């Protein structure tokens, strides 16, 4: 799969021939993936398929051994560090929800809120009325408004997931990487999360990794199946779940 040059320039995120190995184990082998501006994409695949590693590569946590990773058609992400990539407009929710336990929920959002990240600006930061409004809005969206002054460490697993989504919203990135947002949630919460993500996808590009097929179906977007570090199938959920190779991989694990 070699996308034409036009594919690169019109893409928001462009991965081609990406490989990475850990101590000789190839976690990603020749992965190619293109996300268009405004697109929401679901990524599925068995445990160890390399979904999280792919996000690590996009966000600068892991350097690929080979391959191209381009953002916005022109920025080479493999040359940038985590902070620079975040400031380009790529936000991430981690598989294991990671919030700042010793900060209040409100402060977690404040820290994520889109702003200049320099030392001087943060030292002399004043939360403007518009910032406060935005924080309040987000707290409302993630239904944690009443708990705003509680420490994030006291939240349940599901609430932490939502807080992290709230932090993503606050960052207002161009591209959101959302790793297993529904893990540890009740069915009701899962459904609400799907609604929330669809809402977010209206004006953001989103990549969602999830194991919950009901959730993926709810999103109703193009699905990419990863297996052993490469793309196995791509297309609408019904089509990929009818794919023999996909069935084999899922049943064979």
């Amino acid at each position, binding site marked *: 799969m070699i996308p034409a040059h036009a594919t690169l320039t019109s893409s928001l995120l462009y991965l081609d021939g990406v490989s990475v190995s850990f101590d000789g184990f190839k976690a990603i082998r020749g992965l190619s993936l293109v996300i268009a501006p405004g697109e929401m994409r679901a990524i599925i695949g068995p445990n160890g398929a390399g979904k999280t590693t792919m996000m690590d590569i996009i966000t600068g946590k892991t350097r690929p051994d080979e391959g191209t990773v381009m953002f916005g058609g022109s920025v080479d992400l493999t040359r940038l560090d985590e902070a620079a990539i*975040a400031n380009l407009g790529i936000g991430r929710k*981690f598989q294991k929800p990671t919030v700042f336990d010793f*900060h209040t929920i409100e402060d977690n959002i404040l820290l994520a809120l889109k702003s200049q*990240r320099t030392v001087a600006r943060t030292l002399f930061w004043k939360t403007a009325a518009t910032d406060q409004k935005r924080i309040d809005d987000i707290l409302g969206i993630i239904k944690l408004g009443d*708990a705003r002054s509680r420490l994030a460490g006291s939240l349940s697993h599901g609430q932490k997931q939502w807080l992290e989504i709230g932090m993503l919203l606050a960052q207002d990135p161009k591209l959101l990487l959302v790793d297993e947002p529904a893990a540890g949630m009740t069915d009701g919460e899962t459904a609400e999360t799907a609604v929330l993500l669809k809402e977010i996808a209206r004006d953001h590009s989103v990549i969602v990794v999830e194991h919950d097929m009901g959730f993926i179906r709810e999103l109703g977007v193009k699905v990419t199946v990863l297996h052993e570090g490469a793309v196995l199938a791509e297309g609408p959920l019904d089509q990929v779940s009818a794919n023999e190779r996909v069935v084999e991989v899922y049943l064979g694990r």
Partner: protein
Amino acid sequence: MITRFLIQGIGRLDLTFLGLLAALAVLVPLANLLLPENSVLHVPTSTMSLWGKYLCYALLAISLDLVWGYCGILSLGHGAFFALGGYAMGMYLMRQIGSRGVYGNPVLPDFMVFLNWHELPWYWYGFSSFPFAMLMVLVVPGLLAFVFGWFAFRSRVTGVYLSIITQALTYALLLAFFRNDMGFGGNNGLTDFKDILGFNVQAQATRAALFAMTCVMLIAGFLIARGIVDSKLGKVVIAIRDAESRTRFLGYRVDRFKLFVFTVSACMAGVAGALYVPQVGIINPSEFSPANSIETVIWVAVGGRGTLVGAALGAVVVNYAKTVFTSGFMAPYWLFALGALFVFVTLFMPKGILGTAQDWWGRRRKREPAASLAEPAPAE
């Protein structure tokens, strides 16, 4: 920044602490200078200078708490910044001796004459000026911290490795300052001071002024530290302490934030050292000894890290205990006692004296231990 937090954020504990320091700054010098010696309230000069020394340690402890308690950088080399500030002050005091030294050389300090040196090394230039020396009190430790931190934080050295290299830093300086040819008086260090700003350092009034100045600088250091930790930068720094890589993914350049607090903290430690030297009358290389830096960590742990006030409290409590302990028959066992104290605090009072007291206080007032952690608490 400062004004904002003065209006809204300052807690009752902080106010008590600041009020106490302000009172000490005024009352102790007055009780020393004005009350007759037979009065019960009279403060002897030696006691005043001893407490002045404790308060210098308190400032050092606050500077360490800023990096350790809030940013998670366990510096085992903060004694180096303290000592460098002390040496800068010592160099000024040496230059003030002038021709009153044993050898009567108007320019060279005695130890240089003794070493047969004929001119002042270039790095002693300017130290006859008080403003220049005070600038160096900030610049020398600050610059060292900046350069050291620039390399360490950029290469993402953290945890134990960072602690070890800070320890190596102070050890290297210890060895360097021991050498006579470094030009800092070798193992005797700098001493026999005469004047500071034209006043006799030994005079009672000068000592009272130094004590008051120490209180003032401790208040200033505390306010700066409080201003930093209560700002958004302070929140970023705590975020770095608790989830460093998460903070990076939010777009914060972790190394720069660490560098900022580390440098500010080193400057603060330097000021503490500068106030310490005229009050104890000497600065020598033993101030660089790794054990000093480790003791500072113990003060902060005992007082309660991440509270600022606790760090200052720990410094005073431990050093007061040290004075009592080492002046009696138990003197040889002080290090054992200190070690035991550290182990005790780590095991049974991980939040230190202040944290434990606050928990206890909070529980008494609420009468509902930690219930708010369970399910949706009412908005506060």
